[in-house]
């Protein structure tokens, strides 16, 4: 803990969108007035019981919330330490936590009278979730996706098209998630009058990190209530994988002021932190400014952004949400990392012991649990977010394991 422990960890960001030195609004002037409008509208929506009622109703009847909190007996036994529990967000409609945020943002878009939706996507999960809510509400949808990712993620590209979205392959830069986000920002700046940008993670200019966190916090609120009701106490440790960090902040945030609950965010270490082939912005990056916010970034000594790598396309981003950067510096949350190989082992472990095929993203969280659970007593409780299901990843895993399909 830092010596300047705040009274509460839940009152960030400040009115300028800063989480300590992180966050903020670093956008071209064309977007600033819109960002300010969005913030004003979000304040109103947050205070509007009708907005909350509609959001809650859609989460219950369309997304399928609350998601179960599941005690995993066989992986617990295999690891021989703390009890392992999973928050089952992979059972949501569309197969991941991304939909929670998309529901919230499209409701905001409609409140603001916007008639066209854009989004960026890496692996395609956020693209699919965005295309889903656009179909549900009948709004035209354009998804920007790096051309490299379009090739790697054909099933999700087809899903988005089935849902009526236009998928634009981005060939600029190195044609991955970062470039898709650049292109979405370019589209937005040219179409500010009618277009709403649904950002997929708890990053970007203020108020995005705050509103994405708020929409995703349903994960942690449910988990907290479910854990209390099932065990009569709070968990000892929360674990979640981190790319941009939306599922992790969603799980962590409602517990931030429970001092007995420790938290562990798990970044993707790719081929290891020794070289450049990883996506661990906190462990291997430095503070800087990209895509509207100040946060830890993978960058060189001149401030040029370097490419991340992870076997999980959803974690393959050179930045991280600004609230995580602040929680790291404040000492409230611990951050570690897992390599591609460790995540692959954890992926198979969960398949084998619990009959659950996880996405590669939460496989990183499971890899961290494999290390930490045996060091904890048997009456300790770990609660991890299973933020996505692995159907989308079976081809990647097969290839990594040398299996021909």
């Amino acid at each position, binding site marked *: 803990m830092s010596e300047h422990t705040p009274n509460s960890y839940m009152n960030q960001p400040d009115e300028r969108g800063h989480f300590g030195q992180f966050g903020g609004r670093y956008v071209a*002037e064309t977007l600033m007035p819109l960002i300010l409008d969005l913030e004003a509208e979000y304040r109103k929506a947050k205070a509007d019981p009708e907005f909350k009622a509609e959001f809650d109703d859609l989460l219950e009847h369309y997304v399928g919330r609350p998601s179960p909190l599941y005690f995993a007996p066989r992986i617990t036994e295999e690891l021989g330490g703390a009890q392992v529990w999973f928050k089952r967000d992979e059972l949501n409609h569309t197969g991941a936590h991304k939909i929670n945020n998309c529901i919230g943002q499209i409701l905001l878009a409609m409140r603001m009278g916007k008639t066209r939706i854009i989004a960026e996507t890496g692996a395609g999960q956020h693209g699919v979730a965005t295309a889903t809510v656009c179909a549900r509400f009948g709004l035209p949808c354009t998804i920007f996706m790096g051309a490299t990712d379009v090739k790697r993620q054909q099933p999700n590209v087809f899903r988005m098209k089935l849902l009526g979205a236009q998928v634009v392959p981005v060939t600029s830069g190195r044609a991955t998630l970062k470039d898709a986000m*650049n292109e979405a920002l370019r589209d937005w700046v040219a179409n500010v009058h009618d277009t709403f940008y649904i950002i997929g993670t708890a990053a970007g200019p203020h108020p995005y990190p705050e509103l994405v966190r708020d929409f995703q916090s349903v994960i942690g609120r449910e988990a907290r209530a479910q854990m209390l009701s099932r065990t009569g106490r709070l968990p000892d440790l929360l674990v979640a994988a981190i790319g941009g960090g939306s599922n992790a902040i969603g799980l962590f945030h409602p517990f931030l002021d429970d001092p007995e609950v420790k938290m562990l965010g798990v970044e993707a270490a790719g081929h290891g932190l020794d070289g450049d082939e990883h996506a661990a912005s906190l462990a291997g990056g430095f503070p*800087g400014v990209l895509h509207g916010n100040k946060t830890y970034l993978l960058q060189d000594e*001149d401030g040029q952004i370097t490419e991340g790598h992870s076997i999980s396309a959803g974690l393959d981003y050179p930045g991280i949400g600004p609230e995580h950067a602040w929680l790291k510096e404040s000492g409230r949350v611990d951050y570690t990392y897992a390599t591609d190989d460790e995540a692959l082992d954890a992926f198979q472990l969960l398949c084998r012991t619990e009959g659950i095929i996880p996405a590669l993203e939460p496989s990183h969280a499971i890899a961290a649990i494999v290390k930490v659970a045996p060091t904890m007593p048997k009456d300790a409780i770990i609660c991890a977010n299973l933020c996505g299901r692995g159907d989308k990843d079976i081809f990647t895993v097969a290839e990594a394991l040398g299996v021909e399909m």
Partner: protein
Amino acid sequence: MSTRFETTFAKGPALVCFITAGDGDTAANLDALVAGGADVIELGMPFTDPMADGPAIQAANIRALNKGTKTADVLKLATEFRARHPQVPLVLMGYANPMIRRGPEWFAEEASKAGVDGVISVDLAPEEDQDLGPALRDKGISLIRLATPTTDDKRIPAVLKGSSGFLYYVSVAGITGKQQAAMASIEDNVQRIKSHTDLPVAVGFGVRTPEQAAEIAKVADGVVVGSAFIDLVEKHGPDAPQHLKALVEGLAKAVHSARKA
């Protein structure tokens, strides 16, 4: 003592020319721009993620970086430009991250030593001025801000606060190098901005031809051209200087024709 900006804009409408540092033979290209009549130079600092730029300038950024252009090279180009052209205002234009990577004081100090007059940081909103503004102002370097069609009267004072040199009016809501705005809109917006400030207002985005430049020079203090030069640098490589000079001559004549006869 008046600044290079004041001296330059006092003559009447000025031609502001942008190229990306490290793309082509930048020193020779800069000399060609000045020889052709450029009044102010904007030297682009390449960045991996130029979010506000269209395809032409994006590609120029990538070409420069792929050639190994470093921040030190940009500063060296600026230093040598200043030695060759003591009177021409020089602006570094780019994105915030490369400018603050080693700390704002470091950047302001190096820019000052290089003889830079102003800095444009595209994604540093006035709301985040603390990251660069104080350090630049300490060194007497102008922070040049952008105003756009979406910058309403309520917001203009915030944009102007702490800015100096000139104001860059981005005439279209969009990225660089695309369509040009309607003249009526440009004129209205420039007048609107000028009712808030005595700073010169230069207009850019989508300006390519002497005809466009002449029209804008009638209503603004400066005309900014960028992508049209970048296209020539890409197309002609080592032979770019002569082509740049020819284009600048036409643009400069058009802009300067609006000066008081």
